[in-house]
């Protein structure tokens, strides 16, 4: 989208190469179908438009010719579909070090500025853009900035949605409370804006009144989109409080709850009466099929396994993990669900164990269930399941609680994710309504740097000779001159004045027919014209100077000729020599 500025100051060299290329191109065009020209929206019109027609390639940042001067320039180029407007500024310099970057920032020379202050609006016709520039100055270097505005295409907006969601995800994660502050909102909106520029490749986006507006008067995250923000922050805060707790509120973190669970599990595991009960029950089960079936149940077998587990296994159970599993990712809803399921299993196992112990301690002393257990063992077992202080009751409660917390964590994560999707979609819709602005810059292009030379033909009258003849010559200007420029607007002395060097077409020699010859031509039948003149119109000029011819010695006995001069006046046509070779004699009077 952005042209490639050439800041190397090699514009004239580039132009020389460019002219060769253009020449080759024109030759090729001679053999191509005329229809091809019709397909080029920037092909110059056949008639005289009153403008110098120039094409620009905004991708390459180049013009198709040396920039004309002293005449209005109509620049034509093509822009991407979706462009809504184009405006142009330029910077001029007398030195070749002119440089402008891709963002239309003038890099050199110091003091150079983009002009005009208000960019020149271009006319847009589909993807063809035309803009009329004011007359440029000769012997200058120019660089142009084409500011393009466009709607964000739907496809780009759709892709941007994913990036916007990431920005919102990261940004809201930094909000440590449920109260989005103006500064937090501004920062988030700024990050969205930067992401929008990144996604569109634009330099600027017109975002006033949108969620990308970082101004203080428009805060859409705390205004229009407050409900969506609320739906993100509410589950986020729930998740944060579950995972991190809040010491000032006496709320333990998830890991602290898990540590408490681990301690309770260890207390259960370390109970000798419980280990004795487990061993005795397994021994009795060998002779009692009913007891054997009961102990083989899922929950009781898991509970009895607890009594045989080592410290590491208990720690894994407390974390809702199984051996070989990595620590759960607390940002993953799926892993939260798995944790909840594991805690449910632990709670069920601990509940079954508590029920079994209750059966044992409540059984008659002669019951098989109490075989091998002393009264102290029974008291210790009763203590394990005491609702107020028993470690088994506590472990069961913590397993139940942790299951609930893991489920809360899962729903919070899912709700937050869905709310982020919803807000990102609304941001996408906002993005599709935004106008983005990018700058295409051209390289450093020069107007003509060569002094103008024109052909001159007219009448010369030498009063002292009392004769007038026609002459042809050459006019040397001391600056570039554009013959298409209106002299009434660009009629400075330097644009009008030129030195003239010419030869008379007719002879200035006299004599013959019995009259004595007093003068002769300088060369054969021509005498030399040396002088200067001023253009009074684009092609008509008046001049004066000296005619150089030969004069015969006044002594009739001496037949010697010597050089002499006399003043003259001329009225002539200033002809464009270059056009003779380009467009035939018909264009002699053109620029």
């Amino acid at each position, binding site marked *: 989208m952005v042209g490639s500025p050439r800041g190397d100051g090699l514009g004239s060299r580039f132009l020389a190469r460019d002219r060769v290329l253009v020449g080759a191109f024109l030759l090729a065009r001679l053999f191509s179908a005329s229809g091809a020209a019709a397909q080029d929206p920037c092909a110059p019109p056949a008639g005289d438009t009153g403008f110098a027609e120039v094409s620009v390639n905004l991708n390459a940042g180049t013009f198709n010719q040396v920039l004309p001067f002293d005449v209005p320039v109509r620049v034509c180029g093509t822009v991407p579909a979706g462009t809504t407007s184009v405006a142009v500024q330029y910077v001029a310099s007398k030195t070749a070090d002119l440089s402008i970057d891709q963002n239309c920032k003038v890099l050199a020379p110091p003091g150079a500025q983009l002009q005009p202050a208000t960019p020149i609006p271009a006319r847009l016709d589909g993807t063809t853009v035309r803009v009329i520039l004011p007359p440029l100055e000769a012997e200058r270097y120019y660089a142009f900035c084409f500011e393009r505005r466009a709607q964000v295409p739907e496809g780009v907006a759709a892709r941007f949605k994913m990036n916007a969601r990431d920005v919102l995800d990261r940004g809201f994660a930094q909000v440590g*409370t*449920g*109260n*989005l502050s103006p500064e937090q909102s501004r920062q988030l909106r700024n990050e969205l804006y930067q992401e929008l520029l990144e996604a569109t490749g634009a330099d600027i986006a017109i975002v006033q009144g949108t969620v990308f507006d970082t101004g203080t008067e428009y805060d859409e995250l*705390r*205004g229009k989109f*407050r*409900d969506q*923000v*609320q739906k993100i*922050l*509410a*589950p986020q*805060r*729930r998740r944060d*409080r*579950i995972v991190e*707790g*809040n010491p000032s*509120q*006496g*709320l*333990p973190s998830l890991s602290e*709850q898990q540590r408490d669970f681990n301690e309770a599990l260890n207390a259960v595991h370390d109970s000798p009466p419980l280990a004795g009960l487990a061993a005795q029950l397994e021994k009795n089960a060998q002779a009692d099929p009913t007891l054997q079936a009961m102990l083989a149940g899922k929950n009781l077998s898991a509970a009895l396994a607890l009594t045989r587990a080592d410290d590491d296994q208990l720690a894994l159970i407390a974390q809702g993990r199984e051996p070989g599993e990595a620590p759960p990712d607390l940002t993953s809803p799926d892993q939260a669900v798995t944790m909840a399921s594991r805690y449910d299993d632990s*709670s069920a196992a601990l509940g079954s164990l508590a029920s079994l112990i209750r059966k044992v301690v409540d059984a008659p002393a002669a019951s098989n269930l109490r075989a091998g257990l002393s009264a102290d063992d029974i008291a210790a077992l009763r203590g394990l399941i005491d*609702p*107020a202080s028993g470690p088994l*009751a*506590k472990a*069961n*409660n*913590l397993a*139940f*609680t942790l*299951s*609930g*917390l893991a*489920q*809360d964590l899962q*729903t*919070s994560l899912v709700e937050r994710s869905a709310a982020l999707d919803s807000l990102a979609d609304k941001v996408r819709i906002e993005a599709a309504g935004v106008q983005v602005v990018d700058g295409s810059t051209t390289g450093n292009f020069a107007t003509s740097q060569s002094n103008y030379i024109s052909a001159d033909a007219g009448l010369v009258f030498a009063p002292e000779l009392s004769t007038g003849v026609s002459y042809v010559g050459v006019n040397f200007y001391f600056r570039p001159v554009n013959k298409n420029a209106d002299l009434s607007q660009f009629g400075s002395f330097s644009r009008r004045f030129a030195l003239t060097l010419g030869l008379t077409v007719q002879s200035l020699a006299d004599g013959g027919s019995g009259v004595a010859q007093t003068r002769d031509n300088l060369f054969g039948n021509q005498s030399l014209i040396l002088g200067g003149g001023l253009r009074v119109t684009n092609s008509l000029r008046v001049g004066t100077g000296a005619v150089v011819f030969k004069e015969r010695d006044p002594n009739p006995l001496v037949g010697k000729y010597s050089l002499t001069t006399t003043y003259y006046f001329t009225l002539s046509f200033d002809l464009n020599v270059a056009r003779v070779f380009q467009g035939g004699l018909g264009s002699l009077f053109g620029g």
Partner: protein
Amino acid sequence: MAIQIRSHLTASPNPTTLPRRIDFRQTLRSNMDEEEIVVVYQLDPDHQIWFVDGDGKPAKTIQRNLEVSRADQPVLTRITLQKGPGTGPLTLVEIDQTITDSSGIKIPDSCELGID
């Protein structure tokens, strides 16, 4: 002896203008047939939103005692909120809830209230 949150805390009406009595709803369950719990609602101490306590005085903390059963049990708590001294203006306010079950285990819930 332990509590689970079956549906999270919500506030109604939301958003709202203040002062206004707000209905806080959620669904809880216990692993016991009946369990006494303590529910504490808290607001950030620095901002301008306050509860109104039973004596009509502004407060940053409100406590309620509830009984929860083994079946899912919808719970409704009505608390009046108002504006007072503190930082602001706020467009969203976080209301934190801490539930303490009969065994002393604490679990969190919270909600966001939009302020017009």
